[in-house]
């Protein structure tokens, strides 16, 4: 068959895959994907486990070591048969947390640590690149084997060139179907369906070759079994120790391999699919391994000595002239290789972009103006770049190693590499005490040991490790020899590396976890992962929200503040290409919102709040505990703050009040002193001026002299009265006044006051209207003081009542043990705006007022009435000026005096 023919066949096959994948993508996007999401497709997609290594290499393995190749299938079979132990939990956790890769799962479990994400990604790439190289190698080998025409081999079938174009082609396919859109669940129905088709092709091809070998080359099963017995080599002897190690290794690999994680966990849509796969996938493995030993035996028998047993599946049909069968076999191998490369590069690219490139880019970008609008495109571009990068790495590994290694060896090296994730992964699922520090320590320890004891030596002596180091250990330290670490030389290199790397990895993981304290985020995630089944109800994540953006906005506003919440929502809406600030409730949005909220209220609280609002996950006890502890801390802190702030507010208020009081007092004191100064200086001015005049003036009439002396005399009296008033006021204000409380008849007091006030402007006619009956009231009070008040009120009326026919009405009334005496004149009254002022010291309404004094009269009256347990008030709306004097019928002496005394002691303090 010509090389070109073969290339065309491959292209045609790939085009068929394209059509299948496109149809599946379209069906999925139109929601007609029920048949895609079936257990059968899921199980078939799991067959990416069976790579070119399985297809070609297993026969080679069997030819060299007999049944040992079975160990590679026994491990996965055991894992799937016991699926409910690990896989079920892994799948549930993966789906509920929208895990995108194994790196994502480990990073999420350990407090969303990106450091772990980076470590796991690097480990997976280190282990994955050789594995991809292996596939490229097998494809190019199968090409060269197939093309029999030597002239063509020389011209066009250069193995590295074939590998190169294969890598390009696969990169193209993966990019087209793996990065078409950015799906939150990282599910790729197109790819999965294409993989399922390839799974069928490779199984059919291997069975076809097997059937041909058993029934057409040999004469049937009995014949084949006897040929196997005849062919059995000494090396085929079963080594129980090695078998145990290899079964364990392959069991670990089926869980940890990035591509297996991709199809098992990430692409899983339903728990039930896993239940089906738990028996169907072991069945597939059984079928695909059924004819391995027969083909190997027949190949060893028939093929010329020196033939590469790794290629028996292809070379045997060719040798026997079965070109059609050979072509099918070729397509089977091609399928096995391409499906692995596609899924592996997809899985690795997701890790590279999510854990390395995007975080780096964001860190670089964060210093600049972050325009989040182009994130989707960016992530897709990074994915595409990462896919190309992963395939390029595989290609370069292939070039460097020259494709000389036996296929199985490379596969097993990769297995040991990915196995290093096991402690962290198992810890993530089953041990709440597992911590980020432990996981990082374990991973780094295991990775270092794997690289030193297996990966670097695999390049052969002289490439990375010299033969000297391999034989005698670095610097001649024997117990550091890569194949004989700590003096353990009894094991073969593979098991030696597996033992030391996993043992020390697990040890570091446990010690690190015991010795470090997990962050709140880790504790929350730990509880969520380990107790995944304890959450009742249907397992749902953010994928099926029932809340609307309108419901979430108020929550966000409450926590973030209105403006920040709105701008966040607007930005998220813009990210989805929407106007306004109500984005669609997508999982990405909820995740972003949770993250945003967790910055303010803590991760557990944010998650629980959204879970409640969105109505998905039922919040577990652990969630609530975590929330409670967060809340308790916050509450305690805020209670302290509140108490402090209240105390501060109280103190500040007291200070402010005290300060205001002092200011008021200070202003009052200044005004008072200023007033007193004025009131004292005014009469003194007259006294001084006239006494100087009398001293200076020689010629002065006796009338003048008498007049001036009279002025001096009057002003002196005014001065004395002012001082008396001031002293009186001071005594009254401080409650130091001595009251002479005695029974007295009110009428007598009023009579006395009227008589006394008659002297004021005595020339003016002033009528006083009284109702004498109610006045006949016996009261108990200080008669002198009360009379003083009455006189003051009456005198004021005489002075200020400007009526042509001035008159005053005095009304007495008794009310609830109080006596009210109203003095109402028929003047113009006191303007409303002045009514509140008249009882203040030195208040003067008109210039005439000062004729009677310094404006202390009503202030003194008020103080007297307070001392008498009563009051004096202006009564508006009575026609003229109206004052109401009220006081108790019987004054309790203690009451009236004890209260001001208290005030005084308080003031003294």
């Amino acid at each position, binding site marked *: 068959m010509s090389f070109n023919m073969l290339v065309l066949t491959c292209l045609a096959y790939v085009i068929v895959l394209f059509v299948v994948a496109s149809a599946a993508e379209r069906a999925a996007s139109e929601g007609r994907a029920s048949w895609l999401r079936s257990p059968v497709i899921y199980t078939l997609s799991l067959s990416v486990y069976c790579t070119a290594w399985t297809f070609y290499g297993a026969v080679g393995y069997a030819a060299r070591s007999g049944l040992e190749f079975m160990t590679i299938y026994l491990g996965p079979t055991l894992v799937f048969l016991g699926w409910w132990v690990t896989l079920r939990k892994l799948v549930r956790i993966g789906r509920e947390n929208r895990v995108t890769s194994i790196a994502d799962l480990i990073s999420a479990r350990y407090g969303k640590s990106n450091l772990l994400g980076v470590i796991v990604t690097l480990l997976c790439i280190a282990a994955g690149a050789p594995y991809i190289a292996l596939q490229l190698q097998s494809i190019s080998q199968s090409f060269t084997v197939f093309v029999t025409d030597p002239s063509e081999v020389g011209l066009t079938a250069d193995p590295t060139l074939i590998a190169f174009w294969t890598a390009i082609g696969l990169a193209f396919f993966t990019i087209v179907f793996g990065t078409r859109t950015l799906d939150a669940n990282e599910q790729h129905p197109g790819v999965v369906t294409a993989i399922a088709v390839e799974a069928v092709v490779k199984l059919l091809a291997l069975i076809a070759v097997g059937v041909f070998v058993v029934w057409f080359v040999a004469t049937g099963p009995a014949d084949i079994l006897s040929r196997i017995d005849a062919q059995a080599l000494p090396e085929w002897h079963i080594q129980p120790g090695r078998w145990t190690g290899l079964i364990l290794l392959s069991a670990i690999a089926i869980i940890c391999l990035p591509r297996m994680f991709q199809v098992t966990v990430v692409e899983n849509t339903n728990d039930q699919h896993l239940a089906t796969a738990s028996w169907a996938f072991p069945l597939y493995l059984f079928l695909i391994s059924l004819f391995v030993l027969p083909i190997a035996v027949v190949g060893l028998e028939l093929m010329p000595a020196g033939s590469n047993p790794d290629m028996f599946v292809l070379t045997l049909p060719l040798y026997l002239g079965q070109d059609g069968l050979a072509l099918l076999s070729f397509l089977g191998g091609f399928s096995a290789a391409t499906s692995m490369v596609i899924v592996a590069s997809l899985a690795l690219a997701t890790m590279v972009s999510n854990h390395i490139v995007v975080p780096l880019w964001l860190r670089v970008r964060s210093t600049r103006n972050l325009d989040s609008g182009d994130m989707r495109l960016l992530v897709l571009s990074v994915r595409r770049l990462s896919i190309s990068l992963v395939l390029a790495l595989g290609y370069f590994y292939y070039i460097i190693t020259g494709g000389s290694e036996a296929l199985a060896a490379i596969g097993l090296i990769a297995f040991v590499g990915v196995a290093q994730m096991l402690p962290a992964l198992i810890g993530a699922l089953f041990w709440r005490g597992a911590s980020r520090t432990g996981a990082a320590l374990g991973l780094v320890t295991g990775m270092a040991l794997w690289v030193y004891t297996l990966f670097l030596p695999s390049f052969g002596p002289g490439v990375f490790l010299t033969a000297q180091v391999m034989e005698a250990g670095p610097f001649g330290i024997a117990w550091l020899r890569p194949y004989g670490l700590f003096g353990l030389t009894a094991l073969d290199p593979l098991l030696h590396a597996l033992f030391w790397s996993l043992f020390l990895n697990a040890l570091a993981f446990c010690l690190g976890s015991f010795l470090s304290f997990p962050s709140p985020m880790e504790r929350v995630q730990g509880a969520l992962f380990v107790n995944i089944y304890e959450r009742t109800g249907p397992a749902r994540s953010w994928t099926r929200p029932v809340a609307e953006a309108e419901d979430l906005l108020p929550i966000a506003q409450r926590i973030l503040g209105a403006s920040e919440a709105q701008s966040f929502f607007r930005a998220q809406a813009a990210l989805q290409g929407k106007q306004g600030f109500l984005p669609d409730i997508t999982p990405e949005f909820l995740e972003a919102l949770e993250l945003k909220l967790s910055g303010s209220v803590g991760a557990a609280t944010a998650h629980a709040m959204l879970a409640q609002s969105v109505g998905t996950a039922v919040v577990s006890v652990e969630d609530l505990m975590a929330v409670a502890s967060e809340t308790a801390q916050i509450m305690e802190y805020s209670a302290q703050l509140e108490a402090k702030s209240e105390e501060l507010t109280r103190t500040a208020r007291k200070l402010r009040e005290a300060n205001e009081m002092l200011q008021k007092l200070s202003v009052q004191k200044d005004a008072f002193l*200023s007033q007193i*100064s*004025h009131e004292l200086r*005014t009469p003194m*001015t*007259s006294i001084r*001026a006239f006494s100087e*005049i009398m001293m200076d*003036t020689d010629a002065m009439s006796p009338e003048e002299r008498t007049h001036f002396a009279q002025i001096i005399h009057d002003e002196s009296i005014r001065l004395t009265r002012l001082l008396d008033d001031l002293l009186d006021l001071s005594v009254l204000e401080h409650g130091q006044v001595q009251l002479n409380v005695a029974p007295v008849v009110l009428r007598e007091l009023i009579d006395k006051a009227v008589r006394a006030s008659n002297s004021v402007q005595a020339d003016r006619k002033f009528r006083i209207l009284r109702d004498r009956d109610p006045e006949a009231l016996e009261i108990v009070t200080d008669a002198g003081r009360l009379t003083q008040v009455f006189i003051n009120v009456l005198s004021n009326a005489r002075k200020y009542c400007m009526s042509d026919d001035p008159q005053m009405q005095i009304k007495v009334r008794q009310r609830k043990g109080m006596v009210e005496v109203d003095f109402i004149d028929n003047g113009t009254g006191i303007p409303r705006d002045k009514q509140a002022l008249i009882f203040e010291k030195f208040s003067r309404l008109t*210039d005439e007022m000062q004729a009677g004094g310094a404006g202390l009269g009503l202030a003194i009256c008020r103080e007297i009435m307070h001392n008498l347990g009563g009051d004096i008030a202006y009564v508006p709306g009575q026609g003229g000026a109206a004052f109401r004097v009220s006081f108790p019928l019987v004054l309790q002496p203690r009451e009236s005096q004890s209260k001001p005394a208290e005030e005084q002691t308080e003031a003294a303090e």
Partner: protein
Amino acid sequence: MEKRVLVIEDEPNISEALRFILKREGWRVEVSADGTAMLGQMQADPPDLLILDLMLPGLSGFDILKSLRALDMTRDLPVLMLTAKGQGADRAEAERLGVTRFMTKPFANADVIAAVREMTAP
């Protein structure tokens, strides 16, 4: 011609004392307690000197001084301000408003006469 002095003072005894000592000095003395009314009169017929109390009913001495200084006829009228309040702030305010002399009550008659002579010296 006899010089005229206007005394705006609401305390009758003080205006009487001022009237006496100024008259003795040869001034023709007018006395009023109503500054508002005098403000208009002074524009028509400004005196040679004004003695102004600070604390007055109605317009205060400051108000009157301010108005006087704003009007043409009395812009340069010598004004002696007398006050019983006697606080530093009042003196500063009076000077700001353009008072000619500022004295506190009680005053020595001789000081008033000396100030008046000084203010009206040619």
